[in-house]
Structure formats: C-alpha cells, structure tokens
C-alpha cells in the first residue's frame, strides 16, 4: 500500500500524470482545486470583483467540473464573482436533450442562473435540419460556427463580456497535434492560448482547465460524486480528431507528461515571431479554401470570396510594408489590421461585411427551393 505524498496518513488513491505524485482522495481534490486557482491568478484570467461571468456548460464532465471548482474557489477565496451557466441547444435529437437536463440539475446544485439558447431561435435551423440538408459530411463546420457565435450572443444577451469554457489539457494538446499535422502553425499558436480575444468578437474567452489532465478531471468528478452526462454527438465521428486523440492517449500511456509537454510546445510557438510573420501571410488562403468548400453548394458566395482574397492580399502587402519599416511586432500588428465591424445582415460583430453564420444560413436557405423543385420533377 502507498501512503499519500502530502498528508502521509491516508492511502494513496491517485497517481498524478504530470509528476507521478501519489495522493489520497482529499489531498488530490485540494491540489486540483488549488492549481485551477493558480491558473486563474497567474495566467491573466482576470476575475473582477462584482463581475458576471458565463460558464459555457454542456452537462459533460469538463464544464461540470469547471462549474463545481469555480463555485468552491469563488467561496473559498472570495472572488466576489457571479457565475452564470450558458448552454447551447444545437437541436440534435437524442444528443443534447439529456445533457441539458444535467445542466438544469447543475444549475440547482451550484446555485447558478442558467440560460439556454437554441440554434433554432438564433438561426432558424436546428442541426437536425442542417444535416437533413447538407448530409453528415461537413455539418460540423455549421455547428462550430453557429456554436461559437451562439455563446457570444448568449453572453451579450446576459450583458456579460467574459466566457469561461471547459477545454482541458488533453483537448488543447489534441488540437495542437491536429494543427501540427495539417501544417497550420498560426492556428496551432492560437489554440494554445489560454485567453482568446477573437478578432470577430469583443468577447473574452478563457480556459481555466487548460493545464488540467482529462484523467484528473474525470477522477475529480468521480471522487466528488459530480453529476455529469457522457455522450457522443450522433453526427460527428470526427475521424481526424479521433486519431489525434488516440495518438495522444498512447503517448500518455508511455509518458504521462506528454500531454502538458505538447501544450507547452504550442505555447512556445505563440511566441515565435519569425514563424508567425511568415505563416500568417499564408493563412487567409487556407481559410478561404475551407469557405470555398462550403460554398460549392451555392455559387452566390463567389464574389464575397474574391473580395476576401483581395482584402487578404492587401493585408499581406501592408504587413510586408510595415516589415520594411522595421516593425518588430508582427503578431499584434496582424491582429489589428482586421477591424471589427458589424454584419450587414444580423448586426452582429464581424470582421467581414456579412458574418460567417449569416453566410452559412444564406446557403442553407438558398438551396432550399431548388431541392424542393427537383423533388417535384421526379
């Protein structure tokens, strides 16, 4: 039998992946909570006294643990902050229904206000309807764009400007691996950031569980008997992420510190200005290729893409110009070149004349009649 490395009295029940330390249940719970507190203090996730802050809540293990830990810390260290659970209902039958029930219970358990926002109300389309239209391939793009905005819109609706999400170290390491394997270093750098202020949004987003192992999140939930829901989206096998995840889990098995090591590698790349400068100029083309993939269904987007291409190349020129003038802050420069405006359709903040969600909704709506007609012709 092993004794706890901290108290020396109780039986060790956990071996920590990051350092191999053997801890008893209650010392583990204390250490886990303390580390989240440290992350909040040291990485600039400012929690301002009196502020209302949203927690993106899905009812899954990560957001449930996040809410539970934040409730503890808010009371223990007197943050003086009000947390509100913000949930998005994608409208996927058999997937979100049960997890939303879990979120409702969590709201009662943690004494937090709950706001649920649906895709149907926001965009006029549930994901079930989107999949019926576009098929199971590529529907994740819609869901991702819709969800990102949905959280922002939900927070804005609640007069909140800071959203906390439950992304853990494994999630971030997976995304870093995926971006590395795709050769997408700009995204790699961004996904490793703990706080993201997107250029298309004034909303601040932070990941307090960034350094928390998935394994420890599950153990924490287990030892505290937290009420969470495990499910897999019925539409998304997400093959590439699945492979990255399997690779990460294999690495973790051989060398448990791998997960945090990969996160740190990603962080170092954020501060690699030379690479950022070169690769950022290549990025808009990548992003446009992705958009082009979506707009294949409706050619009406071509003009917009051309325009984007022009904007991108003019940005590139201005960046090159600034480089010759000896500017040494390429990354922040690049972020400020794109100014935030408002979407012409929905008025929501957007770096483009029409926001990405509206473009997607337009595609969905425009192709609708043509399909109806072709059905009639049969």
């Amino acid at each position: 039998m092993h004794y706890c490395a901290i108290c020396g009295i109780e039986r060790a029940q956990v071996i920590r992946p990051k350092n191999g330390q053997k801890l008893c249940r209650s010392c583990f719970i204390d250490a886990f909570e303390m580390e989240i507190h440290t992350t909040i203090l040291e990485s600039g996730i400012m929690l301002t006294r009196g502020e209302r802050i949203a927690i993106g809540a899905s009812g899954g293990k990560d957001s449930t643990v996040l809410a539970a830990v934040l409730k503890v810390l808010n009371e223990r260290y007197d943050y003086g902050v009000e947390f509100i659970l913000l949930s998005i209902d994608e409208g996927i039958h058999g997937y979100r229904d049960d997890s939303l029930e879990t979120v409702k219970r969590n709201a009662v358990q943690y004494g937090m206000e709950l706001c649920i926002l649906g895709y149907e109300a926001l965009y006029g389309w549930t994901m079930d309807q989107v999949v019926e239209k576009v098929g199971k391939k590529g529907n994740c793009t819609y869901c991702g764009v819709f969800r990102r905005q949905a959280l922002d819109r939900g927070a804005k609706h609640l007069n909140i400007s800071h959203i906390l999400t439950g992304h853990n170290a494994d999630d971030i390491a997976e995304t870093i691996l995926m971006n590395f394997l795709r050769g997408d270093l700009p995204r790699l750098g961004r996904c490793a950031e703990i706080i993201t202020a997107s250029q298309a949004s004034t909303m601040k987003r932070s990941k307090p569980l960034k350094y928390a192992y998935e394994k420890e999140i599950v153990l924490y939930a287990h030892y505290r008997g937290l009420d969470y829901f495990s499910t897999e989206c019925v539409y998304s096998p997400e093959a590439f992420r699945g492979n990255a995840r399997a690779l990460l889990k294999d690495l973790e098995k051989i060398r448990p510190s791998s997960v945090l090591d990969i996160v740190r590698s990603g962080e170092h790349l954020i501060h690699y200005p030379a690479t950022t400068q070169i690769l950022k100029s290549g990025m808009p083309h990548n992003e446009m290729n992705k958009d082009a993939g979506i707009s294949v269904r409706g050619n009406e987007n071509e003009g917009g893409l051309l325009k984007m291409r022009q904007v991108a190349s003019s940005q590139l020129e201005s960046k090159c110009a600034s480089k010759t003038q000896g500017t040494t802050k390429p990354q922040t420069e690049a972020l400020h070149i794109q100014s935030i405006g408002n979407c012409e359709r929905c008025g929501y903040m957007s770096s483009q004349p029409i926001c990405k969600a509206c473009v997607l909704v337009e595609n969905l709506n425009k192709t609708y009649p043509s399909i109806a007609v072709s059905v009639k012709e049969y």
Partner: protein
Amino acid sequence: MATDSIAINVELAGGLEILFNNERKLNVELPATTANGSPPNINYLVGHLCDHHMKDSRRELFELQGTVRPGILVLINDADWELEGEGEYELKPKDQILFVSTLHGG
C-alpha cells in the same frame, strides 16, 4: 464449486455503459484459476467482459492489445489501477472495479 470462482463487482461509467446495454453495474464471476494456471487479473477481466457481457460488436472501444483501451481509467477499490499494478493486478473476491471512459465528450 464456490471456492473455484471469484465474485467481483464491476461498474461502467463515462459512456462505457453504452457498450454494455446501458448496464452500469455488473456482478461478475471469474474462475479462481485461469487456463494458464494463474489467478484472473484485470487484463483477464477485460477479455471476460468482452466475451460474456458486452452487447456491442465494437470490442476495440473497450479492449486493445489484451488490455483496456488507453483513455479508459480503471479504479481498483476506488484507487487508480496504476498504483495497483495495472493489468497485472490479481483480482480478489468482492473487489470493486470501476471502468470510466475519459474519451466521451459533453
């Protein structure tokens, strides 16, 4: 025959129950000695669960290379299996074995 078998309790969580017809708790009887003459260990249990209790054809979601798939946590009497010898841990009567997946999302 009671001395020739070991009765243990198995619990499945974190989405793994889906593979077992949504059953979260199983009472499992294992032979006191396995074919190779040694007592059953966790790896043996994993194979046994796949052969006798799993109601899903996707065995690889639970078992890989003769042991539990990476990303599934195993708790032996509420302690991390890494503290107990992992797959080589020899099962004792009334042991509580929890398998919990970390692989499923919210």
